[in-house]
C-alpha cells in the first residue's frame, strides 16, 4: 500500500503549488510541508494458512484417530503396531471429514478429506523411505570403518572379524562404467531417432523399447550368460556390464525422449533457418539445450541398474577377493555381495552385508550428486540463467 500512498501525497503538493503560482510573489507564503501521516505497519496474513478453528479440528481428528484405535486395540487384543497405525489413519480421515461437514458443509468436508488424503499419502511415502534408510544406517553404521572400505574378504574366515567391501565397490564402479558407456550413447541416439528424426520405424522402435523396459532383469542376465559367458569367454565384469546395459537402454531412451519433447520447436526451426543440416541442429542446439534433462535420464538408468543382483550373479558370478580387471575372471559387486553374505548363517557376515547395503546407498547418493553438480556447472559456464 505504501507504493500507492506516496504518489497521492505528491499530487496534493502539486495542486497547492499551482494555486500559489497565481498570487503575487511577495505574498507567497512558504508552502508548508504536508504532514506525513504515520503509516501503520501492515500485518500480513496468509489466506491459505490454517485458521484457528481448522487447527483445532485437525488436532481433534488426530486425537480421535489415535484414541479410537488405541481403544480398539485394547478391546480386541490386537498387538501389531501396523494394525494400530492403519486404524488410527482410517479413524483420523473419517473424523476429519465429519468434523468439517458439521462445522462447514459437505463440499468443504470432501475437499478437506481429499487434501488430507493427498498429504497423508505423501507423508507415508516419505516416512517409509526414511524408515528404510534409517534401518540401513542403524544396521550398517557399526561395521563401517576405514578397514572395511579398503579390504576384501579373501583372507577372512567365516567367523573372523575384519574383512571388507573394497572388491565389491571396485566391481560395482567398473560394471556401471561399462554399462553406462555402452548404453547411454545408444539410448540418447535412439531417443534422437524417435523424436528428432521421426523415422519410418519410430513406432516399431518405440514398441520394442517399451517391451524391453518390462524385461525381467534375470532374463537379460540369462541372455548374456548364454551368448557370452558360456561361449568360452567365462564370467567377467564386462559380461555383467553388458547385461546391465540391456536393462539401462529402455529407461534412458524413454526418459531422454521425454526430455527432448520439452525443447521448444522454435529452437529447431531457428537452427534450420540459419542453414543448418539437421544433424548439426541436433548436436549443437537440441542436445545442449536438453543437457540437464539428459543427465537426469542417465541417472535414472544408472539407478535402475546399480541395484540389480540377478544379472550380475549370472554373468560376473561374484568373488570374495579383489579383481581389478573387468575383462577377465569373476568379479563381485555390491548387491551381489549383500545377497551372498546375508545368506550365511553367522552374525559377522550378516553385519557385513548391512554395512555393504549402507555403502551401496551412499555410493548411489554420491553418483547422483556428482552428476547434478556436473550438469549445473555446465549450464553455468554457458551462462544460462534459468
Amino acid at each position, binding site marked *: 500500500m505504501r507504493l500507492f500512498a506516496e504518489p497521492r501525497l505528491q499530487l496534493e503538493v502539486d495542486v497547492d503549488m499551482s494555486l500559489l503560482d497565481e498570487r503575487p510573489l511577495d505574498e507567497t507564503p512558504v508552502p508548508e510541508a504536508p504532514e506525513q501521516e504515520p503509516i501503520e505497519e501492515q500485518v500480513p496474513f496468509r489466506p491459505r494458512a490454517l485458521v484457528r478453528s481448522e487447527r483445532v479440528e485437525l488436532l481433534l481428528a488426530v486425537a480421535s484417530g489415535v484414541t479410537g484405535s488405541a481403544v480398539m486395540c485394547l478391546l480386541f487384543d490386537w498387538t501389531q503396531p501396523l494394525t494400530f497405525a492403519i486404524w488410527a489413519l482410517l479413524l483420523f480421515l473419517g473424523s476429519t471429514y465429519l468434523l468439517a461437514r458439521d462445522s462447514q458443509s459437505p463440499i468443504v468436508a470432501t475437499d478437506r478429506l481429499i487434501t488430507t488424503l493427498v498429504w497423508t499419502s505423501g507423508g507415508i511415502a516419505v516416512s517409509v523411505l526414511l524408515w528404510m534408510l534409517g534401518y540401513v544406517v542403524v544396521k550398517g553404521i557399526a561395521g563401517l570403518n576405514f578397514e572395511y572400505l579398503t579390504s576384501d574378504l579373501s583372507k577372512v574366515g567365516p567367523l573372523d572379524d575384519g574383512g571388507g567391501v573394497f572388491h565389491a565397490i571396485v566391481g560395482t564402479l567398473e560394471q556401471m562404467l561399462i554399462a553406462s558407456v555402452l548404453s547411454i550413447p545408444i539410448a540418447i541416439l535412439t531417443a534422437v531417432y524417435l523424436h528428432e528424426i521421426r523415422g519410418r520405424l519410430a513406432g516399431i522402435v518405440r514398441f520394442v523399447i517399451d517391451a524391453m523396459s518390462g524385461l525381467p532383469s534375470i532374463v537379460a542376465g540369462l541372455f548374456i550368460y548364454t551368448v557370452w559367458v558360456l561361449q568360452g569367454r567365462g564370467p567377467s565384469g564386462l559380461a555383467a556390464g553388458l547385461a546391465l546395459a540391456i536393462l539401462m537402454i529402455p529407461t534412458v531412451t524413454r526418459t531422454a525422449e521425454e526430455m527432448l519433447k520439452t525443447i521448444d520447436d522454435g529452437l529447431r526451426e*531457428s537452427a534450420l533457418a540459419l542453414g543448418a543440416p539437421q544433424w*548439426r541442429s541436433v548436436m549443437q542446439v537440441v542436445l545442449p539445450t536438453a543437457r540437464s534433462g539428459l543427465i537426469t535420464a542417465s541417472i535414472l538408468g544408472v539407478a535402475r541398474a546399480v541395484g540389480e543382483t540377478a544379472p550380475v550373479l549370472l554373468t560376473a558370478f561374484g568373488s570374495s577377493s579383489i579383481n581389478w580387471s573387468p575383462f577377465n575372471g569373476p568379479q563381485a559387486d555390491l548387491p551381489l555381495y549383500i545377497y551372498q553374505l546375508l545368506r550365511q548363517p553367522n552374525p559377522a557376515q550378516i553385519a557385513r552385508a548391512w554395512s555393504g547395503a549402507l555403502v551401496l546407498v551412499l555410493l548411489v547418493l554420491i553418483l547422483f550428486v556428482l552428476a547434478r553438480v556436473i550438469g549445473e556447472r555446465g549450464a553455468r559456464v*554457458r551462462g544460462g540463467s*534459468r
Partner: protein
Amino acid sequence: MTTVQSPQTAETPAANRQVVSSEILPEELHPSSRIDATDVTCWFGKRKVLERCTLSMEPGEVTALIGPSGCGKSTFLRSLNRMHELVPVAAIAGTIELDGVDIYSEEMSPTEVRSRIGMVFQKPNPFPAMSIADNVLAGLSLSGMSNEDPKALVEQCLRRAGLWAEVSDRLNEGGMSLSGGQQQRLCIARALAVHPDVLLMDEPCSALDPISTRVIEQTIRELCEEITIVIVTHNMQQAQRVSDKCAFFLVESIGDPGRIVEAGPTTQVFENPSDPRTYDYVTGQFG
C-alpha cells in the same frame, strides 16, 4: 557509433546510415537480392491453404505481407526459404526464384537456401545453452561456415541489429537473460551473421512491447539498405511505417485457400487501394 542505437536515427536516417555502412560493414557484403514468386500454391496434406500467389520482392525494399489471421501469409513467407516443407505433409507448386535461380530446383540445397534467406520468428528464441556472443555466431558453425575474426563479426552484427550498446559488456552471459525485445534483436543479429541476402520476418514484434517494437522497426529501416526484407505483420500502422511495398492476403470464404488480393507500393495500398476488399481491411472495416 552511438547514433545506430539512438532514437533520433529514425528521423534523420539517410546521413546516419551512410556513416554506418562505411564504418562497420565489410566491403564484400552481398548486394541485395530479389525474390520472384510465381503462381505459388501451398498444401498441407489435401488442404490447399494458398493459391497462385505471385509477388516480386525487390532488392533493398521492405515488403510487408498483411491480411487477417489464417490467410496464408506465414505459409507464403515460410515457402520462401523452404521452411514450409518441414511439416511432413506439406506440398508446394509454382516457382520461387532467388536472383533468377529456382530455390526448389536441384541447383540449390535447402540448407543453402536457408543460409541465403534468413528468418526471424514471431517468438524470440535465442539458443538457451549459448552465451550472447555464441548465439550470434551460432549460424556460422551450424551451417559449416568459418570466420577469421569472430569478435568483429559479433560486434558488427549486434550493431546492425541495434543491440551492441546494451550488451557489449556482457557478451558471455546467457541469451535468455535479456528482455524480450533484446532477445528478438539478438535473433536478428544471429540471422545477420551468416550474411543472408534476404531476411524474412514472421510477425517479429507481436510478442513485444511498443518501445521494443519501435527499436526493431528502426533496425528494419536501417537494414533494408543492404538487404531485402519481407515482413509479415498484423499491425497496419507497422506495415505503413516500415514497408515500401505491401501485399494483401485474404481468404474469400471459409475453406477457400488464401490469395493475394492486391499488391503494390505501401502508400497506394493504404491510401488509394484498387480493390474494395483492401479498402475495407486497411480502413479497419472488417478483419
